[in-house]
């Protein structure tokens, strides 16, 4: 039998100290919807649970002077989709927040936790990538920032060193005329893990694409920033031909595996289809409408 410890620091400093003291035996606990399940199933051996929810910086959701948003690492999903400004500004992120687990799970699960769990299929990560989010990390040696697409390093692994924690994410203010969308493919209609997930963000000048970012989940050891797809779109008219070009690039960028959740061939196909659909949705939002396809 394993004795466990629970700590509830109220400052980032104290949390860093506890994490530094216990090294890999300690783990931040936000909603616990991944961590507690993993420990129960013997998939992770954690001795010290460090509760994130008593630290103000980790629970913060606020708009900064420059229009960017600070999203505390432990802010639960439901808070995002119940926040009109956040939903209007970063719709791809709320698309993801609405489909993680069940309503009950969304009351606990956080975007930061989803990112730190670093699963290849984490639904919020492609949306954060397309919104150019930056991770604010605190540790024994002070603070540092990492672009969200560089955060995950392998399934279940990320750039956080022992003693470090994710404090918050900074999401830049999207320019006018932009929109985003995230959707995933699951064989059922709820309560499932993405076979493939795709996010897209577009900025339009009239019908012309002036900036674009796309991301994919569950097709590589980490969520992917498909930079080439977005780059290819710049200067093109936002139509089906353009989306097909980007979708082709996304399919080529995907390097999925066969597993119990999907096959290589199916995931390749889905990378194409979902990128296309995410771009359509992003375009619709950029033009003030809403996506008409996909979940």
């Amino acid at each position, binding site marked *: *039998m394993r004795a466990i410890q629970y700590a509830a620091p109220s400052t980032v400093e104290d949390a860093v100290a506890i994490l530094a003291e216990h090294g890999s035996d300690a783990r931040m606990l936000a909603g616990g919807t991944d961590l507690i399940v993993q420990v129960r199933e013997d998939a992770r051996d954690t001795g010290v649970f460090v509760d994130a929810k008593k630290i103000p910086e980790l629970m913060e959701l606020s708009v900064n002077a420059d229009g960017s948003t600070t999203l505390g690492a432990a802010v639960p999903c439901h808070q995002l989709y119940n926040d009109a400004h956040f939903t209007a500004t970063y719709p791809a992120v709320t698309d993801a927040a609405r489909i993680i687990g069940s309503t009950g799970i969304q009351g606990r699960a956080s975007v930061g936790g989803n990112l730190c769990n670093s699963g290849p299929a984490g639904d919020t990560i492609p949306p954060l990538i397309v919104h150019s989010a930056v991770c604010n990390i605190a540790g024994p040696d002070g603070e540092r920032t990492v672009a969200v697409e560089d955060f995950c390093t392998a399934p279940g692994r990320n750039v956080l060193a022992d003693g470090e924690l994710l404090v918050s994410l900074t999401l830049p203010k999207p320019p006018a005329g932009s929109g985003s969308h995230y959707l995933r*493919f699951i*064989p*059922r*209609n*709820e*309560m*499932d*893990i993405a*076979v493939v997930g795709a996010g897209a963000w577009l900025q339009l000048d009239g019908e012309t694409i002036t900036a674009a970012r796309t991301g994919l989940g569950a097709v590589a050891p980490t969520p992917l920033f498909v930079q080439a797809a977005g780059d290819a779109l710049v200067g093109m008219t936002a139509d089906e031909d353009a989306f097909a070009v980007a979708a082709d690039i996304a399919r080529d960028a995907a390097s999925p595996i066969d*597993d*119990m*959740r*999907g*096959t290589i*061939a*199916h995931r390749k*196909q*889905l990378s194409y*289809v979902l990128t296309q659909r995410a771009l359509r949705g992003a375009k619709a939002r950029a033009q003030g409408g809403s996506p008409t396809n996909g979940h």
Partner: protein
Amino acid sequence: MAIDTRVAPKIKHHDEEYKVIGTRPIRHDGLEKVTGEARYGSDINLPGQLHGKVLRSPHAHARILSIDASRAQALDGVSAVITSADLPDPGDKLTTGGEAPGLPVKFKSANMLARGKVHYHGHAVAAVAATNQHIAAEALKLIDVEYEVLEPVLEVWDAMKPDAPVIIEDLYTAKADGTTAEEPSNVAAEMLYEVGDVDAGFAEADLVVDREFTFGVVHQGYIETHNATANWLKDGHLHVWCSSQGAFTIRQELADLLNHPITKIHVVPMEIGGGFGGKTTAYLEPLAALLSQQTGHPVKMAMDRADVLKATGPTPGGYVRVKMGVTNDGTITAGYANLAFDAGGYPGSVVGAGCRCVFAPYNMTNAKVEGFDVVVNKPKTHAYRAPGATHAEFASETVVDEICRTLDIDPVEFRLKNSAKEGDWQLAMPPYPRIGHIECMEAARDSAQWQTPLETAPGKKRGRGIASGFWFNIGFTSSVIAKLNSDGSVTLLEGSTDIGGTRTSVAMQFAETLGIAIEDVDPIVADTDSVGQTDVTGGSRVTFATGLAAHNAANDMKDQIAEGLADLWDVAADSITHADGTFSANGNSATVREAAGLLEEEGVFPIGKNTVTPTREGGAFAVHIADVEVDEETGKVEVLRYTAVQDAGVAIYPPYVEGQMQGGVVQGVGWALNEEYVYDDDGHLLNASLLDYRMPTALDVPNIETIIVEVPNPGHPYGVRGVGEVPIVPPPAAVANAIHDATGLRMSHLPMSPPRVQAALAAQA
């Protein structure tokens, strides 16, 4: 949200009018279940109780070289560790009871705790009892098992090859001609059924369609996991509380497996959180009993979800070939079918039942059906709602649809023209009694869905499919003991675990016969010491057979009341008439309530009882219609609309019948589209969780429209046919035929999951 209070359509083919039967009273177990007061196995906690856990094999096929439990036994808090060495040697004994009696007990015993070899990933190897679950879990890690890993055999077509590794070294095929094979193999049994001249029938045909189908393993997916608490007293009395589909079956299995007298075994059935055929046999009960015997304490055990998926009895994967011949005017001339089902790690699949059903909806004058029961390195398979019929009829109903398409014949007209009816041949059984396939097909044809053209949507591939289904149902033995209380109410003891609402449907038949209100009957599912022999809740038999016992017990009580009144009224008992719950003779009359009061004064307390083993269960037919939309880009299939039509004989409690129909459809749609066991090449089950074993959620099925058809079963006083199983049979074929209508694809594997549909679409393009 508004509550849907519509009463679904019912189509009667009889003139009987009943007072209680066919009404919708409040269910007897409703309040306890919605308030959480109903007691399930996990609610049992006894003083001094220990907790048991099972060590399971990490390999699909391996020889056990040694088991060393000394480190576990030395752990503080551990009271006992058992292995197969602690189970008595069953010798050549055969099983009795359950759904499939007559199998060697040695196989069942080895499935409880592996004897010499493990036959599948998750096979129980040892069990421990400790003061709490955490210590028990820790102890499992301290049991050292040395394995010699062997090559696994996972699919029937591999297991049947002459050079396949033989899983059970002394298994000799029981051949269809009654002889036994001389060399051991993985084929436990062969079956052959024939009628007419199949070669001549195919020679007459203008069109022959011959197709092969394969199947993944699926689990029943009941939400309550298996559990058992046992208390073995010093005098040898063994008390067991468990979640099972039959307390008497568990008692018999405990007697067989533990070599313990049946009179000393007392099994208490707890409320059950789903079974669907998967709780018709013991898993934890014998282990908890042995651990209790060894420790002198009660021992409680419960499986987690992974245990349930890995190591209970899912229903088989396998292979079905169906070949049918027809003339150009759409008359079936011959049918041939070959079914090979995986039994799992030990013999005894449901292939025989599949054989019986494969051509059941049709009047077959020339047919040949072969079946093979094949041992593979997967969990020992078990019944799942019309076991074997879904596989078999997915194949035959897909072939029928192809025939209709090829000959351009309406699928309803084809089925009406060739339908089985009273007096037609039935495989391995006497000719059909009165059955309702034609009536179901007519009701389907006239249904709102069939009469409404499929709505098209731009850019969407939509299609409609129809399919028939048959399940034969079973009779077996049931008992009822009914006590007339002095206020005229009745306490009704029955032995059938109530899975589908049967305590109410049984009580309603009793009330109808005695002529009292349903509210005056209090039905109780009794333990093995308190009611007569009652076989497993399975084969859709309870409302039929236990209902018959209730009817007979009510008549017995009626006779006893009449005898009591005869003394009071000074008339001959046989001169007393009984109508609408009132006894009358010679100017005297008394309702049941009044009679109970009169008899109480005389010290007379009637007890009606009956034990019955009926054999005229009557078959059940269903016809289902599915509308689907196929996402051509992803391969995902959405069910848009669904109608289920079913012959219930007479629907005793219509809401339960509708619930069974809808529940069967949900499970059938899950099987059709997503559910399957996923194995790696070494035979490890990869998706032993409800996250990755994908059963449908509420968002995955539409409202299921139901139409009850009543063609009374002549083998039951109220015309009852079992209703619980047949509704799972048509959905995969109805969905497959709808997918074909939408896309032109013929899917030949279940499940028709998105990657498979997408791959088939890509191949088509």
